[in-house]
């Protein structure tokens, strides 16, 4: 009976919501960036599934329904972008240059470090689109010959890291403007970082959302060029 029940979408949806609400509650009480509700929920659910022997594909029946809402959420990023269009348009130059630099540095530093540390070709290529939103990262990595599931995992880890540390890190290095902060976290940590920025500041969130699209476009076109130049 239990095995039948965990294979219904009800199980995955309820588990995700219960754990997320508890994680939010926990986050409010401990006030540490590492208690980030997304990170805590992911770790808790993985441990619960491993501990109880429930298969990931059973959880995913419900999980995928929650994940589906990410699609219309990405479309909805156009709304704050439109609402803050004047403030954003006024800063088009820093935004475009900032994302371009971030996109270039992301590819070069991720691949360069992995290569220096003796990573195999597959690993190096799978790391290239790590700061790009998952669907774009997957299509990029399939074209250049990396391992798509590995890229998906790296992209999520990058997003969690940027969401957890991004706002605090920016403040510590003296980046205080809401536009620059949103741009930094959105460029480095795509959607997960953007979701975090919306909790901090609406303008930062809007700019981070823009950075997802821009970084995706720039990486798509930059990466093949860099591969030709470096001869990798």
């Amino acid at each position: 009976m239990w095995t039948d029940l965990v294979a219904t979408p009800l199980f995955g949806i309820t588990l995700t919501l219960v754990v997320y609400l508890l994680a939010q509650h926990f986050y409010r009480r401990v006030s540490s960036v590492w208690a980030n509700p997304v990170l805590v929920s992911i770790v808790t659910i993985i441990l619960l599934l491993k501990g109880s022997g429930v298969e990931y594909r059973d959880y995913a029946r419900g999980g995928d329904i929650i994940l589906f809402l990410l699609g219309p959420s990405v479309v909805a990023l156009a709304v704050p972008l439109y609402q803050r269009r004047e403030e954003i348009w006024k800063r088009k130059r820093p935004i475009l240059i900032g994302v371009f630099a971030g996109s270039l540095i992301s590819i070069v530093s991720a691949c360069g470090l992995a290569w220096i540390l003796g990573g195999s070709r597959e690993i190096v290529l799978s790391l290239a689109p790590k700061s790009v939103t998952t669907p774009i990262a997957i299509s990029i990595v399939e074209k250049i010959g990396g391992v798509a599931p590995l890229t998906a995992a790296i992209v999520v880890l990058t997003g969690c890291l940027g969401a957890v540390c991004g706002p605090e890190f920016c403040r510590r290095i003296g980046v205080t403007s809401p536009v620059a902060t949103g741009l930094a976290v959105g460029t480095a940590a795509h959607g997960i970082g953007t979701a975090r920025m919306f909790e901090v500041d609406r303008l930062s969130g809007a700019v981070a959302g823009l950075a997802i699209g821009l970084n995706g476009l720039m990486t798509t076109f930059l990466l093949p060029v860099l591969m030709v130049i470096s001869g990798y």
Partner: protein
Amino acid sequence: MIRGLTLLLLFQLCGEFVSRVLDLPIPGNVLGMGLLLLGLLTNVVDIKWFEEAADILLSNMALFFVPAGVGVMVYGNLIASEWIPISVATVLSTFVVMAVTGKLAQKLETPEQDNVD
């Protein structure tokens, strides 16, 4: 809420359609965001139709990533096989990108703001 969500899904569907027909490397939801922005800027659609649904979705966007993160568990072995280059490159590169983008954007932004103020 339902009207807003329906319209958002329609834009996503249009984005998916364009992405597939033109065989673009850009996913349908990102194209959908571009199409909606275009629709708003050209007054084809009214921002009021979307505000409520967008607000609900965006303030809960973090939740929607949880199942994607749980998916990482399936690739645990793949990551474990070369975890040093993967983790070092991911962590350092993420901080470097934030520092470069944040610092550069703030530096370029400041003189423009002075003109405005």
